[in-house]
């Protein structure tokens, strides 16, 4: 007796409803899925159908907000601190403390940090490899804007990206994202040495 898809969906939604409760910051509304999470959960790791994927990416691209002052590059040393910190948004974190970017959990970034993850690609020499010698120059604009968009809402470029949507989901502040931008793109950042 194999359960039908309908049985499974019903049992899953009942299990989700009965199993979780609010704790600290972490409220039940976190289990409401948007279109991206809905589709990417259902696909169980398989690629989305082309049209659906594109639609999700377009909708997410629309959410990307650029800073009003036009400055996209902050301080790389601050960015390194954001990249190191894995704090924030768990039920044991305070709602007022600054969140971290958890970047090293998944990426190699500065060469000096040995403890880095491999879920995402290495970002060592990120700006250098892309020929960024002056991130404020016009020639750098496409890669700088793309990087901002990727940090703000990764699903704008890959519907089922495993990376959090740091700007869109209010994980990092605009200033923190500027600082991470500097870590990746500033020629003086250790990332580009």
């Amino acid at each position: 007796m194999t359960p039908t898809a309908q049985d499974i969906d019903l049992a899953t939604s009942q299990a989700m409803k009965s199993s979780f409760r609010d704790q600290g910051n972490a409220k039940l509304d976190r289990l409401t899925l948007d279109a991206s999470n809905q589709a990417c959960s259902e696909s169980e790791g398989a690629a989305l159908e082309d049209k659906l994927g594109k639609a999700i990416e377009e909708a997410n691209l629309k959410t990307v907000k650029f800073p009003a002052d036009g400055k996209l590059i902050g301080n790389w040393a601050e960015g390194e601190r954001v990249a190191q910190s894995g704090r924030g948004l768990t039920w044991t974190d305070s709602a007022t403390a600054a969140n971290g970017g958890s970047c090293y959990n998944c990426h190699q970034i500065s060469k000096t940090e040995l403890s880095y993850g491999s879920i995402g690609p290495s970002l060592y020499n990120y700006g250098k490899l892309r020929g960024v010698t002056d991130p404020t120059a016009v020639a750098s604009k496409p890669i700088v804007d793309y990087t901002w968009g990727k940090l703000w809402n990764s699903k704008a470029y890959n519907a089922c990206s495993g990376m959090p949507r740091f700007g869109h989901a209010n994980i990092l502040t605009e200033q923190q994202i500027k600082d991470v931008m500097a870590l990746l793109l500033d020629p003086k950042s250790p990332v580009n040495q």
Partner: protein
Amino acid sequence: MERRDFLHRSGATAVAIAAATGLPAAHAQGAPGWNKAAFESKNLAEAAKAMGATSAPIESKDLVLQAPEIAENGNVVRIGAQSNIANTTQIAFVVEKNPSALAAMFDVPAGTDTNVSTNIKMGQSSNVYALAKAGDKYYYAVKEVKVTLGGCGG
């Protein structure tokens, strides 16, 4: 690894690592003969002195320190030492960058091998020393142990 990395980690565990090895103010009813001064020392030289050394310890190849190059977690680091120096009667472990440098000392009576190991806490990457007393002289061996950040970091 910088010390700030530890201070930046959240949760009780991280705090435990950062504060791994401070000393309490009072030992009103502790074990008799516990060498408080030695456990308050800040480095190898102070520790040896508090243990009774009258001259500075000498580095010796006949003292073999076993310690990992990298520790996945500073809460538990296995260290051991074997002394091939004749008449060794005491073996101690010193972690340079712990708030109190001396971690443990072992008196080795005749008939017991001069080879001991134990688990220690390390607050951050540091030089770790084995210190051995033979006759009235002290000898040491040193190794650097890197303590890494692990897991999700939250």
